[in-house]
């Protein structure tokens, strides 16, 4: 495909036609890009991923996915099948995604719905579990899994579709540091396979590792910035405006730290350099 994988033109989305979740979003995504969508809680990141996955229709504006207008995708089973074979969404809450009695059943769900031959389904299940390092969890019930295991199983359930595009909603949220870095490495591995990765997160420390481009959604639910990782992450005033860092809890060069301040005060340039060094 030569054109962009996604092309959003002045997209707005309102829940129940009233509550504005996204406002005037313009976004182009090229094949193979690794993009991080940054935004504070409630800025509309998850809604954007659901729009990209064709699960929600834009209230106004146009969305082109895989070169086609996505309007009416939910009413066309054939088109929806083909689209979801190529675009996978990993939900923020793995309990939403793991709805089958066992991990193996969940990973098999997608390929089965796409009418793939049973032999192919079995091979994809094994492959996806292997890739996520969880073949031992195949027959386990989701309620028996830890948070990290659930996240891996949720990603495996999408990987079994072998999609070209993977949308990840907060893949490292609520995980301990070790599990978080295991997940980050898995995401990096997926990107290295040439897949297009769009990751919604508000964890700045993982962004330089999992993305090359950053799209920041502001609290007004509009795109506040769109550019290379370093350019965006070095722009403290922008990150403060997007509520991604606070003036008293932020990043100094490569160091992220937390410290107390008197209310209303902020340390000067010299102090910041001293702290970072």
């Amino acid at each position, binding site marked *: 495909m030569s054109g962009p994988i996604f092309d959003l033109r002045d997209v707005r989305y309102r829940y129940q036609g009233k509550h504005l979740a996204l406002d005037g979003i313009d976004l182009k995504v090229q094949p193979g890009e690794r993009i991080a969508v940054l935004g504070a809680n409630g800025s509309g990141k998850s809604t954007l991923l*659901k729009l990209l*996955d064709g*699960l929600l229709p834009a209230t106004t504006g146009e969305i082109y996915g895989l070169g086609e207008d996505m309007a009416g995708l*939910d009413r066309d*089973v054939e088109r*929806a*099948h083909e689209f*979801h*074979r190529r675009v*996978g*969404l990993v*939900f923020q*809450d793995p*309990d*939403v*995604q*793991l*709805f*089958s*009695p*066992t991990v*193996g*059943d969940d990973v*098999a*769900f*997608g390929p*089965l*719905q*796409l*009418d793939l031959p*049973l032999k192919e*389904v*079995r091979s994809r*299940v094994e492959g996806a579990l292997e890739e996520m390092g969880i073949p031992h969890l195949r*027959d386990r*019930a*989701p*309620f*028996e899994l830890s948070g990290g295991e659930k996240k891996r199983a949720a990603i495996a*359930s*999408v990987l079994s*579709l072998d999609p070209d595009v993977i949308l990840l909603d907060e893949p490292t949220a609520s995980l301990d540091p070790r599990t978080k870095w295991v997940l980050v490495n898995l995401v990096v591995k997926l990107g290295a396979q040439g897949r297009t990765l769009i990751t919604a997160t508000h964890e700045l420390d993982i962004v330089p590792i999992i993305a090359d481009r950053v799209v920041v959604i502001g609290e007004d639910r509009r795109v506040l910035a769109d550019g290379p990782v370093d350019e965006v992450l070095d722009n403290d005033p922008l990150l403060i405006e997007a509520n991604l860092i606070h003036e008293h809890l932020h990043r100094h060069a490569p160091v992220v730290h937390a410290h107390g301040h008197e209310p209303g005060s902020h340390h000067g340039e010299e102090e910041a350099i001293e702290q970072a060094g």
Partner: protein
Amino acid sequence: MSIAAPALNRTPRQKRYRPSFVEKTLAGISAGVEQAVFSEENARRDGLLQRRDPRVKLVAFIALIVAVGLSREWQVMLALYAVVLALAALSAIEMRSFLKRVWLGIPLFSGVVVLPSIFFVGQHALVTVPFGFFDLTVHSDGLRAAGIFVLRVGVSVSLAILLILTTKWADILKSLRVLRVPSVFVLVLAMTYRYIFLVLHSVNGMFLARKSRIVARTSGREQRWWIVATIGVLMSRSFRMSDDVYQAMVARGFSNRMRTLDDYSMVAADWLMLAAGIAVAALAMYAGWML
């Protein structure tokens, strides 16, 4: 510096601690979840029944339960119960908890149901008990019928529990397909079971959060009000979650049509167990008819 701990001696005015309705509910929820996890652990053990195809177990156990249900002779039921105990022992099931699970509750519930029949059914009086202005007469045939009823319920429940203890719930559900249960129905059952755990987890959290903030005994009225409010919150959460789950299904190609992956294959031992199960059930029915 050390601080002496306050004396914990109860004064005569202090009442004995009794868990509240909320605490008892909390304990019940935790016990329910624990029991489910415990059952799955049993199903993973290496035992005679655990090694067999779940479809075989489902069909054979249903045949045995039908045989118990149709039997009118206690000798037949006791013989079938001996088979159940032998199967449990060969399947590495902890016998004490298995027996407790069945016989602590069954006599109570089924006994209450059949209690009147020992006084009103039959003609051969066994003993007469004065009861206020009346005399209650226990009849031997009523007593026999009540005993057989309790035994029948006990053996049937033992069979059902043995099936659950030796088979993963996911496998039991998949096996329902053998009985031509529609796959969408199986999916709904599976999802219900799956999300009951999640809801129980939420309930547990809500109960604990409430308990941690309670510093005095609350009235029954307050507790009932809180339970009603909790039900409302859970219902609203469940609706929201069902929307999300449906989206997660659609995102992976679901279009109101189901295909399932059944990785079962029958080996000689499975065929043998199926034949044995049906043969024992048929023999029990025949013996019951002959006696």
